[in-house]
């Protein structure tokens, strides 16, 4: 997640509550390509939301009791400082406004 989103993440934690944010974190960390146990996930539409170079399509998670988060995941990402292949979930945006 971008450092620039850290404040929004902290706001999400405070607004949604520990349990809902933990559910979001568990979903992103363990099963970002599955339906969540709670909350809802929508795969976004259209050509601009298609994943490239191993990235998934953009997904949208609605945090119970709070805002929304958009993300992509990559099962074998080899970029970044670590270099080795590892699974990565990248948060593209956090929106705490009501819909």
């Amino acid at each position, binding site marked *: *997640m*971008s*450092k*620039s989103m*850290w404040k929004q*993440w902290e706001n999400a*934690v405070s607004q949604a509550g*520990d349990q809902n*944010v*933990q559910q979001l*974190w*568990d979903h992103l*960390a363990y099963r970002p390509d599955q339906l969540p146990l709670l909350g809802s996930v*929508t*795969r*976004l*539409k*259209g*050509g*601009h*939301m298609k*994943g*490239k*170079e191993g*990235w998934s399509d*953009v997904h*949208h998670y609605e945090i119970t009791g709070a805002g*929304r988060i*958009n993300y*992509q995941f990559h099962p074998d*990402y080899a*970029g*970044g*400082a670590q270099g080795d292949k590892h699974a*990565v979930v*990248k*948060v*593209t*945006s956090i*929106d705490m406004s009501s819909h």
Partner: protein
Amino acid sequence: MLRMSATIVGMILAVPVKGDNIMAVTTRSGRTYQPTDLTTAKRRDFIEEARVGVARLRNSDGETLVALPERDLNALVELRDHALAFLSLENAMSRAREDRRSTDFGELAWATVLDDDDLAEFRAEFADGLASALAERSVARLDKTIHAWRLTSDLLRDPVAMARVNAGVDEDDVEVSSPTEIANEPAV
């Protein structure tokens, strides 16, 4: 006084006796009831026909009323609304892009941000969804499709977020630990 269960019969609608421009409906018996039937044992048949589809009643003015499950009526109303939205989309797409105004899209004004390829895909999914909704008498799946496109348009309006789509992880990115782990970390 006639008493009808609201949980069984949704609403009675007035329809033209000889109307040709309304949705064709078929009653189980093909029978049209009279108001006096509802004061006799026939009212059970009337209610049962309404419960499983459509029951017709002709009042003293010769106007035919129909009773049907409320969920079916709601589905028809929602389908009408979606059909009108679809027509607005078609109308907007029939104009050259430079001539389109957001108001041309009606309640789908958010779709103006979609490029022509996305609009064509949205239109195709909308048409499929309408056909399915008619068959299923439910707009639930169509609503999900429209919702996904709405969310897509929201993200397309955010250039900062769009710059991150398909971009690699960079030095500006930080890992997010589990909220539980963060909470359990000893204070320094």
